[in-house]
């Protein structure tokens, strides 16, 4: 592209990138450091930029005992809730949308396109827009404060359906026909050919959807009231007290760090599949 760059010309991109990394990484660093000091050190307004010595104690308390003053729940329970919610949402969304995409692409039935467009239109109605009717329905079904109420309304997904539909349309018709001649019915074709071919797409979607589920804030805030149903994102919010009580910042920081870990792990572990699913067109 650019030929014969000067020393400055070669350094500049690195400087820009380093600045970018610093902007993104510094708050994370601050959270990690904050979680290793005593609350008094943070509370006096001059938190040092080097790690303190309280890490083990803080993380033990955060995970298994709880801050005590504000919520009695230890963060390990919240982590489990969040993890279950994100898993159910991600797996549920993938299962529902791959099946509906399969129906829309491979079967001819009355109102097929009407069904497709109805799914498509729901893209314009995210949870926030339909939150009152959704809350009403979930409440009437007696699903408040339950994992079902937390996850079901978030599972129906137009985005994932569209993505699978687009992928299925690139699968050559001859594969369907070869399967027919090989004696594979609709279910066998789905299980033996379509699912294995969608593997990387599913992985990519799983990463995106897991993080989507993990980061849910508004819906869990509305639907859960019991402490033992709290997700970690809500938990952090509840730890920050605005009244005269002292916020235990080291525990808030530790919780924030813990809340970051599972999504990071998912991305790191599935990165290879994730990238392939987004760029590769296998056949």
């Amino acid at each position: 592209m650019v030929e014969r760059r000067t020393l400055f010309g070669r350094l500049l991109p690195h400087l820009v990138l380093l600045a970018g990394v610093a902007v993104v990484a510094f708050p994370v660093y601050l959270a990690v450091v904050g979680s290793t000091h005593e609350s008094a050190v943070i509370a006096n307004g001059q938190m040092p930029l080097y790690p303190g010595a309280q890490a083990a104690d803080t993380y033990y308390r955060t995970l298994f005992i709880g801050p005590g003053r504000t919520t009695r729940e230890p963060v390990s329970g919240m982590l489990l809730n969040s993890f279950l919610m994100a898993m159910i949402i991600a797996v549920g969304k993938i299962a529902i949308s791959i099946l509906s995409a399969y129906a829309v692409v491979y079967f001819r039935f009355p109102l097929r396109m009407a069904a497709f467009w109805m799914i498509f239109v729901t893209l314009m109605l995210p949870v926030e827009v339909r939150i009152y009717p959704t809350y009403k329905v979930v409440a009437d079904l007696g699903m408040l404060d339950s994992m079902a109420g937390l996850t079901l309304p978030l599972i129906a997904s137009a985005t994932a359906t569209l993505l699978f539909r687009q992928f299925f349309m690139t699968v050559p018709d001859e594969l369907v026909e070869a399967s027919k001649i090989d004696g594979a019915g609709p279910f066998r074709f789905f299980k033996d050919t379509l699912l294995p071919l969608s593997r990387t797409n599913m992985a990519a979607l799983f990463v995106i959807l897991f993080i989507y589920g993990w980061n849910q804030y508004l819906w869990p805030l509305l639907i859960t009231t019991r402490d033992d149903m709290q997700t970690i994102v809500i938990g952090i919010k509840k730890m920050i007290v605005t009244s005269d009580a002292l916020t235990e910042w080291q525990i808030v920081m530790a919780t924030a760090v813990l809340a970051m870990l599972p999504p990071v792990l998912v991305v790191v572990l599935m990165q290879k599949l994730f990238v392939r699913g987004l760029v590769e067109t296998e056949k």
Partner: protein
Amino acid sequence: MASVTLTDVRKVYHGGVEAVRGVSFDVADGSFCVLVGPSGCGKSTLLRMVAGLETISGGTVRIGDRVVNDIEPSERDIAMVFQNYALYPHMSVYDNMAYGLRNRGTPKAEIDQRVREAARILDVEPYLDRRPKALSGGQRQRVAMGRAIVRKPQVFLFDEPLSNLDAKLRVQMRVEIKRLQRALGVTSLYVTHDQVEAMTLSDLLVVMNGGRVEQIGTPTELYRRPATRFVAGFIGSPAMNFLAGRIENEGTVTIDGHRIALGTPARGMLPGAAVEVGLRPEDLQLANGGGAQLSMEVEFVEELGATRLLHGRSAGGAITVQVPAAETRSSGTLGLAIDPALVHLFDPADGRRAGMAG
């Protein structure tokens, strides 16, 4: 093994488009039938109806003595080779071949024996564990054939199986397909738009045009006695020349005043009637001395190595003549000698072979 019989088969799509307009023919047990025609002529649709991938709008398709109109593709006892191979990309070569047999509940030991046998015949044994992605075009083609062979079907269906290969490989695979079909003796239907493939492979050649059969016969029959102008122009390479002429009497036509003798009398044609005179480039010869019945003005030459094509103009229209490489005359005005037995006449009104009886 079984014969394939089509009786008045029709295909009408939603919206009334007629892709196949009443096709009947009979493929004898063990013979190789090629359907050939320009794109959109309905040949692929016809093949897919035999396969069961398209519904049949009218008429019947029989495999052996069984009417298969309403039978699932997997129950028709056929195997199909697709143009883009349609191998399952996520399965190994072995699994690709074994898949159909597993679905039918064939015992494991028998599957293994059949797959290895097919791999041996097709020379793909070293690749059994590979994915199709790791194979060359020719190897994929073999695997696709292997998938057809292991099923031991009554009928092989080929849908332009060689069009994705390069020219050299295409010729090589063409020979292999023919050899394999001879060895296995399985009735085969083969669709192509390539007339060389059609001529070389077929026992029975079906030329289609606009959803109808133009002519059915052996390749030699179609080459020697094309029933219509379409078949005449389609079969044979380079294509036949057509010159506008008139009947003079039963034994002679004239092209712009040049008189050309006919080997077979043009019966039932009125003197003065317009005809199209078909002359194959390879049947024309440069006249020596005074034997010229027609002359041509050479415009350009195509060198083919063993032969040479002279393109130019003559009375009645454009003309191409094939001459041996040893021929030195290749420019200017040349006289042409015409063998009366090799003159074809077509009625310009309906394109049918005209006049000559039999």
